[in-house]
Structures are given as C-alpha cells and as structure tokens.
C-alpha cells in the first residue's frame, strides 16, 4: 500500500533527523593536560587571562589538572572551543578539544 510506505519513510526520516540533531548539539570540551614542568602559578595566570576566570575558579581548575591529569576548562561550541584551545597552546599549555560524550 503506497500510503503506508510513505508513512514509514516519513517516520524514519524524522528519527534520523532527531538523531542528527542530538549528535551535533553535544558541546565541545577544551581539555588541559598535566605536565611535569609547568609551574602551578603559571597555569592559574593563563586561565585567568584567557577565560577571564576569577582566581578561585582558575586555581580549582589548575588543581584538577594537577591531581587528575586533566581538566575540562571550558565547554561550548566547536568554533569557540577550537579558538580557546589555540590560545592555550600559544600560551604553552598542553590542550586539546573533544566532543562531550554525554
């Protein structure tokens, strides 16, 4: 029956559309990785300068990097994540971006 077939196609298209939307809306994370030589104070100053974070937030993120080996320091659009990652790398930190897994 043609009408039933069309209905099924429409249903599949909608499901695909929803799945696509969900995938592209997941935020991008900027991740900073620990290294054995960078002074802690320098990491805090870089976070404050690049993100405008207050001292306590910058310090907290630095401590997460130090103790856990990495920290997500910013999340949002892919373009801004990439821009922030470049700024962090220019400042000499080991940084990457990744799309949020949730």
């Amino acid at each position, binding site marked *: 029956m043609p009408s039933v077939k069309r209905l099924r196609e429409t249903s599949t298209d909608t499901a695909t559309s929803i799945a696509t939307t969900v995938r592209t809306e997941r935020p991008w994370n900027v991740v900073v990785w620990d*290294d*054995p*030589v*960078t*002074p802690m*104070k*320098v990491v*805090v*100053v*870089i976070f404050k*300068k690049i993100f405008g974070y207050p001292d306590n937030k910058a310090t907290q993120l630095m401590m997460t990097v130090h103790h856990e080996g990495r920290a997500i320091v910013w999340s949002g659009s892919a373009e801004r994540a*990439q*821009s922030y*990652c*470049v*700024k962090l*790398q*220019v*400042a*000499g*930190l*080991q940084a*990457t*971006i*990744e*799309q949020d897994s949730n």
Partner: protein
Amino acid sequence: MARLFVRRRDGRIEVRLNDDGRAVAREAFGHVYAAEHDPDHDWHRTLNAPIDPSRDSDDPLAVLARQTETGSNAELAIATLHEEFLTDAEAWAWLTTLQVSLRATASTRGIFDQDALAASDPELLDYIETLQMFLFALAEVL
C-alpha cells in the same frame, strides 16, 4: 631571593634580570622563534601538537592562527629582551614564550612525568629550574 620582575606604581613591570638571566631568556625566545619558522627544528613537532586528536588533521586556519600568535609573541619577546621596563602585553609575550620553551625543552628530552624530570641530567634540570623561576616570577606580577 630577590624578585626578578617587579610591578611598579605606574603599572609597568621592571625587569631585574642580570646579563646571565637575559642570556637565558634570549636563548629560550630564539629557539621558539626558530622552531616556528623551521619545520626541521627539534621543537617543531611539539609546537604543532594536535588540537582535535580525533581528527586526522586540524583546521588549517586554527593551525595558522597558532603559528602566527606564537611567532608574534616570540618576536615581541626578542624585541624587548634588553628593556628595563615591560608593558603587560610585553610581559605576557615573555611569559608565553618562556612557557612554550619550557615545555618544548622537556618534551623533546622525553620528560613526561616527575620521575623522568628527577632523572634528567643536572645541567638540563638546572636550565629547566631557571626557566621555571623566571615564569613563576612573571606570573606573580601579571
């Protein structure tokens, strides 16, 4: 220990490095500048770390932006090497270029953890600690 950088009342940052200190800074700045312009430099790979490791290659515009900004910071640091006073922008260029130099020095020598750092040869360790001292002192005034 005497402070190496001092924030003055007029906002400028006074550089109190002696000739030996400035020679260390010159070497660090020079390596970063050279590495950005020479694909065969030992540090070139470190300075071109992946932005998004899940992709085969990064956005060329982002790579170009990184190269341009890193090179500009190194140029500004070299241009102000003998200055007695620095603006905030110049001090930021010093900090970022010294930090790039520090990490490149460590990673090209295979220093990726505290054990490797502790086991490195005394001359290298002394150089790393000197850069760390400069960076800490700069961070204190920025």
